[in-house]
């Protein structure tokens, strides 16, 4: 009985690995995509949540743009190691190397969009699961310093499409839902 269980377990492991690799391969094949998002941020220091909406675009290998249209127009662009934030006429440029916490947050989204599992694994302990056609990536920071700022990031999706990103940070929670746009 025990032996059978072990064999079943052994058989199931590659299947699991194949699952995450299939999903990643599918994501990696998408060279360019656009989507609309809506986001709510709740933090313990504030009553109520802060909502926002806008568009997301991705271009392989490393460019992500988050264009918020409401409530305040804002454009966040990450390309290579440079992050640019434009808001209320001000433009801030940040090298990701100077801000490890920001880099980790960026790599969670960018690594997923790029289908780059090794990259994700350098920052996070990655746990993958599938329920029917929906997959789920739970990311837990590897470094203690990062873990004090970000507790977990959970990304869900179907096929090559990311559906939700839920980030838990410093007792707050940010939920983003994403819909593809042709």
């Amino acid at each position, binding site marked *: 009985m025990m032996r059978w269980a072990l064999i079943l377990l052994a058989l199931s492991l590659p299947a699991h690995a194949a699952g995450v690799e299939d999903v990643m391969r599918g994501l990696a094949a998408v060279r360019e995509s656009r989507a609309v998002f809506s986001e709510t941020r709740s933090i313990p220091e504030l*009553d109520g949540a802060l909502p926002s909406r806008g568009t997301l675009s991705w271009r392989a290998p490393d460019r992500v743009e988050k264009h918020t249209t409401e409530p*305040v127009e804002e454009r966040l662009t990450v390309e290579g190691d440079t992050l640019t934030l434009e808001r209320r006429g001000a433009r801030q440029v940040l090298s990701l190397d100077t801000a490890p916490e*920001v880099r980790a947050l960026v790599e969670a989204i960018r690594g997923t969009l790029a289908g780059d599992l090794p990259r994700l694994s350098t920052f996070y302990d990655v746990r993958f699961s599938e329920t029917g056609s929906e997959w789920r990536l739970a990311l837990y920071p590897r470094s203690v310093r990062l873990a004090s700022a970000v507790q977990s990031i959970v990304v869900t999706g179907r096929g090559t499409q990311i559906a939700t990103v839920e980030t838990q940070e410093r007792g*707050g929670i940010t939920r983003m839902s994403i819909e593809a746009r042709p």
Partner: protein
Amino acid sequence: MTRWLPLVATLGLLLGALTLTFRAAPPGGDMADFLPRSDRAEARFLLGELQTGAATTLLLAGIEGAEPGELARLSRAVGDALRTSGNFAFVANGNQDVSEAEREQLFAYRYLLSPLTEPAIFTAPALRTKLEALLDGLGSSAAPLLRQFGFADPPGAFIALARGLIGTSSVTLREGVWFAGGEAGPRALLLARSRANGLDPVGQQTAADTIRAAFAAATPGSARLLLSGPGVFAAEAARAIRGDVEMISILSAVLIAALLLWRTRSFTMLALVGVPLAAGTLAGFLAVVAIFGSVHGAAFGFGMTMLGVAVDYPILLLTQREGTEALAATARRIWPTLRLAALAAIIGMVAMLGAGFSGLQQLAVFAAVGLLVSALVTRYLLPRLAQPFGIAARPLPDAVIALLRAMPCARIGALALIVATAFGLLAMGGPPVERDISALSPVPEAPRRLDAELRAALGAPDVGTFIVLPAADAEAALQASERAARALAPLLADGRLAGLDHPARYVPSATTQRARQAMLPGDATLREALDTARAGLPFRATAFDPFLEGVARSRTLPPLSATDLAPGSALAARIAPLLAPDAAGWHALMLPAGLTDPDALRAALAGETGALVIDLRAELSTLLGDASLRAALAAALGAALVLAMLVIGLGSVRAGLHAALPIAGALLLTIASLALLGERLNLFHLAACLLLAGIALDYSLFLRRLDASTPTAEAARTLAAVLTCMLATLLTFGLLAVCTTPVLRSIGLTVALGVVYAFLLAATLAPRSARTT
């Protein structure tokens, strides 16, 4: 075989003694011996900094020639190895330099250290503005960053503090490691400060070797390590000079040997020439050790060059033998002339004792004692050693002798040339003099350029003007730096000054920290202001508790001491070069950037007693000018002494002037030629001129003995002897003139040109003899 014994034994004994002496008292390398002294406070400070200042312990490293990832790995490996080596007070190569503990300390001290701290920032209206901005920011993508500090520090004191610490370097971070910005290929940067002070050449060498070893141990593959800094420079300079000198000594030894072989057809001649030289070197070396305790490497090097005159003595003796005359008789015959030449040269050297550098004094003692002993050995010992060998110089071809003996016909032309040159030099306001101290640096061009590149990349550009604030202790120095910064604030505001770095920027004086503590509101006051500020905003009541706690804690913290920071911390690294103890107490350094109006800067600091505003380039030029002037005066005094010596030795003013004329003429023509070649005169040219004068003295004294009554055979011998001396010198110094090291090139060019002029002038201005033959 027995005839060889005395010569071989003497030479062996001398060389053995020389080797033992070198072992017992190896030449040292303290460059302070060659730095001039000055009474100006600015110059004194500068010289002190050049020797022991924090800048002298800095090492800059670049790693290039591989992919950025690989370079980052190497930089991290080297950095870790250096930190554990114990040879470095501070190592920085990326963002890991600010440790978690230091960040926490800075955060705890934010209201004591930050320039933002004012009573106004804790009032309800000011807090309201900050809270609204925070709320707006929380809705943006920057929210994660804002949450980190926004609730514990809504006035933004810590952010202001951190921004000040980062500075203005063009360093970019890749994978957590510093990289040089810019278009060129990727280059990882590393900065280290050695524990050994700048005056300790062995310690500096060890520090540089530690970096090289750490790099080699990190399996660098194709990557290269570039290393710079004062310590590396010293080693680099020594290596460059050594390389040049080795090449030159071997080549010139071969050429001189060939010349002497051609003239005398005797290998023994070479050994004989070596005897007075070795004896002179030994005596000079021992004399310097006896007087100064040790010999400076550079004094020894230059001294050896000066002692080159001594090579002429045996040549003059051995090639002037008449037929089968006993060499002792030859020595007796030429001794009055040889003695006068040597004494005059020694007198000239003695004048250098007044030059004011310990290095030049050592050089003078070395050369004077060396020449004296060489001359005595040539007179009393060499004839006995050489007698058995029957060396005789081959006569020069008749045509050459005839030409040389006919030269006095051109004396009017030669005199006219000297006068014209003198007027020419006067008309152009004297020869161009070197004012740029960097041109004197023995460091070759390439490492100097690398240093400038690394410095610029690390945001530590060469300092032009800086301000020194002397004080009794560190606290007083910090207070002075705060007062001066306030005095200069208007210049910063209107752009006459682009930036100002000073120690109180990083750690304010305890007085200022206590004053800031006194500005902090009490718990109840702050809570009330905060409640008013947050009215109508969606912040929860407990949201700003970390802020209230932080301010409460700040009120009771003991002031952070600038001299008590954790070694190796980023703050200590920033403040160490700007605040340091010195002989008189402490001093703070202020470094202005982008200064456009130095007069306004001086005027603004007029109230700060004791403040020194130092314009580095101008100060160094003045220093150099003063030193050159003093050396020139010493040389002029030497010239006067030599002339007096000649007048006494030759028995009449007329004869003395006549003997001095070719020497003065040769110096004049040489200086004019150097000016025509675009050379700017510096201290090394001057030293070379002293040597040249010594050599020219020999030529003049020996050739002026020829006159109408001199038999042709003797005249031919003397001319041949002096010509051989001149060619030997030319072969040595002509080679030096093609060196890359500025020092050697200056000396080589001066002496090579000079000996040719000296010989031609001495032959031309000799008493008329051509008509009678």
